[in-house]
């Protein structure tokens, strides 16, 4: 099968949805409401062609003055005037009637101009009212005339058409949709007072494409940025990545914990550390990153809860000079405010960070903040987490996700409403245990795939300037050890009979 001659749009992310570009000569209809970004997309298509792919282009305007277009394009860093002076771009102002007559003429002035500069691309802004929107035979015929004229010159054309949408569907019948080779829909969606933009390829003759609504943004100084929806399939290697290295361990750097984890987490594993706020999850995370740096391996922390200066201060309080590790390029800490996270954009950002920084360990603080931002009821959160796990596995990263469990004492369920346990390899529960008049810190390894695990609750402590450590099962007599109690996570621990207390009798008896 001959390889298709594809025109790369050059628009960031769009050529991934339309794998490699759009078949040359296609007539592409870009539909959208006012302000949806049709003109920006069309102008960028021509600009990228002329400036990056040696494909000169024509822009046809009916209402916008070319002067304003020059000004607005400069805001994205596109110097259209320069391209015009270099004869790689021509901007033509006309009326719809004239354009229709023009494209019917064998000696069309417009197509003659296109031919003079060897144009391969054309953008016509505002086609809707050229042919009407009622789908009558006349409108079909008018659009046919237009597309025939463009195809005669083998131009790949983007035609912007104004459309209104109702519940995701176009209002009215557009003859253009059936005649055009590619139909792209741009929408502005209202989500809880925030507006997000989406792009959907409805059809594209001569190629496969990634269906569904993807997010896009119009970014100052850059132009259109398309972010594949988080659920869209990635490369096949990502799905095969679960067959990770079964031997290499990633030690946590927390005294006493690695012994309980048989040496550490597996490469490519997913670990959730669950516990109420203040129980020490972030401390564990910082020690995990510090251990990574100590071994000369890169570690990445993505925080939605605390900003970077605060994280640096927290680290200093347990003796970790995180700023130095960051300067040395061993640790990267990124804070992203959780308000109005656009999940496709956010996932794209994480993917880029992972591919560029190449960490061996990643800490995400926290899953619960994602839950409150994205909502745990629908599929988005679960799909996002699934994509995140797949990415980390593909890159063989030992990822730790902090999860705030709302229960102060004990835990009725490990992941609560998140229902993600099946995607997680290891679960560490951290919770307060009230003994006498004191809260003491307990740590339980509740799940560790492909590992023997004792599910014993161990006492921990956080020491100023040192961090978290897991205490031995036997303690000096002054402090009664956890092994003296039963039901530590039940909210009502009880003292064991004296002969079964490890700290008192030396038989090392376990709780099971």
């Amino acid at each position, binding site marked *: 099968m001959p390889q298709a001659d594809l025109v790369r749009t050059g628009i960031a992310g769009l050529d991934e949805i339309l794998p490699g570009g759009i078949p040359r000569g296609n007539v592409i209809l870009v539909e959208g409401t006012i302000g949806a970004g049709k003109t920006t997309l069309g102008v960028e298509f021509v600009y990228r062609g002329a400036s990056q792919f040696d494909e000169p282009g024509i822009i046809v305007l009916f209402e916008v003055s*070319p*002067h304003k277009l020059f000004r607005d394009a400069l805001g994205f860093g596109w110097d259209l005037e320069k391209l015009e002076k270099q004869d790689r771009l021509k901007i033509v102002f006309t*009326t719809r009637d*004239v354009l229709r*007559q*023009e494209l019917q003429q064998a000696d069309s*002035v417009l197509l003659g*101009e296109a031919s003079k500069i060897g144009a391969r691309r054309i953008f016509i802004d505002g086609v809707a009212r050229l042919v009407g929107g009622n789908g009558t035979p006349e409108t079909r015929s008018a659009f046919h005339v237009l597309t025939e004229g463009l195809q005669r010159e083998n131009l790949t054309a983007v035609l912007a058409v104004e459309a209104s949408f109702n519940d995701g569907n176009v209002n009215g019948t557009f003859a253009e949709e059936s005649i055009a080779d590619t139909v792209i829909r741009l929408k502005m969606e209202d989500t809880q007072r925030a507006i997000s933009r989406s792009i959907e390829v409805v059809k594209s003759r001569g190629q496969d494409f990634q269906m569904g609504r993807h997010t896009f943004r119009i970014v100052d100084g850059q132009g259109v940025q398309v972010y594949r929806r988080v659920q869209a399939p990635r490369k096949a290697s990502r799905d095969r990545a679960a067959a990770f290295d079964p031997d290499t361990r990633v030690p946590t750097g927390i005294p006493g914990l690695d012994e309980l984890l048989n040496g550490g987490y597996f490469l490519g594993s997913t670990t959730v550390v669950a516990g109420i706020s203040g129980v020490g999850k972030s401390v564990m995370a910082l020690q995990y990153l510090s251990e990574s740096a100590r071994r000369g391996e890169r570690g990445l922390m993505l925080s939605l809860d605390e900003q970077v200066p605060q994280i640096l201060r927290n680290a200093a309080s347990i003796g970790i000079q995180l700023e130095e590790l960051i300067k040395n390029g061993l640790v990267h800490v990124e804070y992203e405010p959780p308000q109005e996270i656009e999940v496709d954009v956010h996932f794209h950002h994480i993917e880029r960070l992972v591919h560029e920084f190449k960490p061996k360990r990643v800490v995400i603080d926290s899953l619960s903040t994602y839950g409150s931002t994205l909502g745990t009821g629908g599929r988005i959160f679960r799909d996002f987490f699934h994509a995140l796990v797949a990415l980390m596995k593909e890159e063989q990263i030992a990822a730790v996700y902090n999860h705030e469990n709302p229960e102060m004492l004990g835990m009725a369920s490990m992941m609560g409403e998140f229902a993600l346990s099946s995607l997680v390899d290891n679960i560490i529960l951290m919770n307060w245990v009230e003994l006498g008049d004191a809260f003491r810190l307990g740590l339980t390894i509740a799940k560790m795939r492909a590992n023997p695990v004792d599910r014993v609750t161990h006492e921990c402590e956080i020491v100023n300037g040192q961090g978290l450590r897991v205490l031995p099962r036997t303690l000096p007599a002054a402090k009664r050890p956890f092994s003296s109690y039963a039901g530590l996570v039940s909210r009502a621990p009880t003292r064991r009979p004296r002969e079964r207390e490890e700290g008192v009798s030396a038989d090392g008896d376990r709780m099971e």
Partner: protein
Amino acid sequence: MNDTSRRNKKDLQRLLACIPVITGPCELDLLVFFYRHPRSILTNEQLAALVGYDTKQIAHAIEAFIGAGLLERTQTSMHAARMYVLVPEGPQLGGFKTLLDLASTRQGRHDTLELLTPGRAGPPSEINAKRRLRVVA
């Protein structure tokens, strides 16, 4: 009239003298249109409607611009619409941007029109144009 206004008016006089093809409001507005739409395909009637003058005035102004080397027009007799291309480095256009800037305010436009048609008595006549040139000289 304050000092700034007087200075601007003097500048306008000087600039208008450099662009003798602007003899009245129609020429000024049409040149502004071509400056903002440097490559356009339109009929004379559409141009007249867009700029707001009658087709005779428009046709006259276009011929003047072409004669002065400011504008190029495709010669395709088959079409009612013609392509007009402003010659960016054309003679007289050097000061045109400055003239536009000065004339872009309400007062500036008023002053420009005043210079082109003293007394604002309708479309420019030959007498007015000559008078203006005498003033500038």
